[in-house]
């Protein structure tokens, strides 16, 4: 009766991807911020379970925006 549900295909969920260490540094430098100034995402968040997130990873989110077409947003992974 049960079917496998791939969470990232749902229409409400934008694409999530994990940044590499060098991309991370670049990002923080570009906006001149530190990690704890970024918005957060829980480690247990349903949308990133396939990315095997660890605390302090940065998740890049490609949102479909009605005003900008595609807008990138970043969240840092936190424990609970």
């Amino acid at each position, binding site marked *: 009766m049960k079917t496998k549900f791939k969470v990232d295909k749902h229409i409400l*969920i934008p694409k999530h991807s994990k940044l590499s260490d060098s991309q991370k540094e670049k990002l923080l430098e570009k906006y001149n911020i530190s990690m704890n100034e970024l918005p957060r995402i*829980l480690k247990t968040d349903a949308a990133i379970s396939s990315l095997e997130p660890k605390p302090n990873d940065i998740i890049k989110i490609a949102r479909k925006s009605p*005003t900008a077409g595609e807008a990138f947003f970043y*969240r840092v992974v936190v424990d609970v």
Partner: protein
Amino acid sequence: MDNIFAEYEDKLPVKIIEDIKNNIPKGIAQNKLRKILELVLEEYENAKVHPGEAVGLVSAESIGEPGTQMTLNTFHFAGVAEMNVTLGLPRIIEILDGRETPDTPAMEIYLKAPYSGGKDIREFALSLKETKLSNIADEFSISLINSEIEIKLNKEKMKAHSLTTPKVAAIIAKQIKGLNIRESEELIILKSRAKEESLNEIYKAKEKIKDVHIKGVKGISQVLPIKRNDEYVIITSGSNLADVIQLEGVDPYRTTTNNIIEVQQVLGIEAARQLIINEVFKVIENQGFNVDIRHIMLVADTMCVSGKVKGITRYGVVSEKASALARASFETPIKHIINAALIGEIDQLESVVENVMLNQAVPIGTGIPQLIANFKKK
């Protein structure tokens, strides 16, 4: 040519770059294209919100102003099935408060073929509807002499759900432990295995048994199949996203609910943010107002920064403010001031409200730049 566009990818939004790509004449000279992009970039930079602009205040006014004119009533669908949906101001308040469950939870269930084409649509919809034991039983009674609970089942209702007495008995046995179950024709008799039960306990057990889940999806109390753009969609009242998306025949990738907290748990914080925007915008549009979506996006972002949906209440986003005076200015001031005094909190006076309280220049717009003295060491 693509390499010129690539240079601007970081600086301009995707949509603008696409617009330029679609509108430039073919075979345009490189220097002209560069000039166009340069001018667009300049305009774009000018159109950006300036540093220090009080965007939150503008959003608050933009959403609050039409809010004064919204309906205060729950709206009823005329005709078919008694389905209400909370709309207007109560719904907006509900969303922005980040309530655990909405007043009228509802789902939109999209289906896969062949159900989406209307095959067996009624049966499929009915199979989703939750059936409790009290829905198929006529009578629950307690026999005082034997301290037993008697359940009289309704034959016709059972038939409609294609159930039989042994089946129902088996379901009860599975869900409630510690009972001896006897059955006959339309009667199920339950007796606790524990010796000497008080009447009070039996009465409690009876109430519990009434709610035993027999069939369908938990929490779905009403179903209504409707046709929308050449396909059938099931609208429900009551919501259980986690279970419904697992069902066969349901298109899990388009099925949604209006319960934001539930979406956050099942689909994650970004989906919840998107749902907040959709739901608030839907209400505002429905009432015939026109609010720029950017204001709603700002509110939704604020609610979702911490990775969990937090309402705009004293327990939600306001409790995370760094300044004790700012928290006190929202609600329950005395509580906040006493607590801050108890732990010796220091207020850095970095934000707006606390500076208004102290009659100082607020850090907004031209209030942001400050002098920094560079003392030379002698």
